[in-house]
């Protein structure tokens, strides 16, 4: 993987972690996208015959793919695989607000207040 792409992924991952990036869903079942002024970045994940694939793509303003990096559990360079898969997980967790949801459950569990509600009330 090119150094500047690695750098791009690193910066975007940090922006996402800092909640400064707004991701949205696409028609791909597990795919997410983020829009820039003249480009769009997508990241995707899928299984084929027990192989786990991750994908990172950059599209220009006409929607043409100008860079695509696909990695999988068996055939890819280990470092590339870790970078893309880690990036995807960060985006997915950010989109579904995984950390906030778990933290909020933990706060409720650690408090002395009653949890849950009786819906038959």
């Amino acid at each position, binding site marked *: 993987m090119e150094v500047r792409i690695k750098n791009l992924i690193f910066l975007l991952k940090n922006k996402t972690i800092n909640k400064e990036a707004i991701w949205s869903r*696409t*028609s791909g079942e597990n795919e997410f996208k983020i829009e820039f002024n003249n480009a769009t970045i997508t990241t995707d994940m899928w299984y084929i015959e027990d192989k786990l694939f991750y994908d990172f793509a950059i599209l220009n303003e006409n929607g043409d793919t100008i860079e695509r990096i696909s990695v999988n559990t068996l055939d890819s360079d280990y470092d590339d695989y870790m970078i893309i898969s880690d990036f995807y997980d960060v985006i997915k967790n950010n989109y579904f607000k995984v950390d906030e949801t778990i933290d909020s459950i933990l706060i409720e569990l650690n408090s002395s207040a009653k949890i849950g509600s009786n819906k038959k009330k």
Partner: protein
Amino acid sequence: MKLSKVQIYTILIFIIGFLGLYIYYNSLDKTFKNSLNLISIFGSYLSLFGIIMSFYQIYDLKAINDKTQKEVNLSLIKINNILSVSELSKSLKIVDEIQNSLRVNKNELALIRMKDLKYILIQVKHNKDLEKYTNNEEYSNLLVDLSIDISNLSDNIFKPQKTINITKVNSNLENISTKFSELENKLKFE
């Protein structure tokens, strides 16, 4: 032969000028009244009149040329508008076709028509008359979303394990349809 207003005015001005010079010649002292002076005065008048007429004709010709050019440009704009409206109507039909193909699981056919739709979206984006409506983020997103849908549908055809959310594709197509209807009406009525 019916003379135009300009021709009548020209003849009148010529005659009045001619008569004016005739009166002027008659009022001259007898010593100046000779055939050489007569030819000189009327010759100068004819030359001057000729030069003024030439200038006027050149100016008139330029005005006609400008008017013709304006008319040609207006016709071209009208033709372009008609073509754009027809392209937009065509793409609305293509959107319907794609949605029908997806409904009956004819994904290969839908993919071909989606590529046609993308081509029209790019073409409309570069249409000068529509530039003010298409040179924005909303339009770019339509194009990018369609491209992502094309890529996902193509992947789904060749790798069926890679699933696609057809509802989302239909929603994106609906957005294109709404935008194109809006553009079509703007071209027709504005």
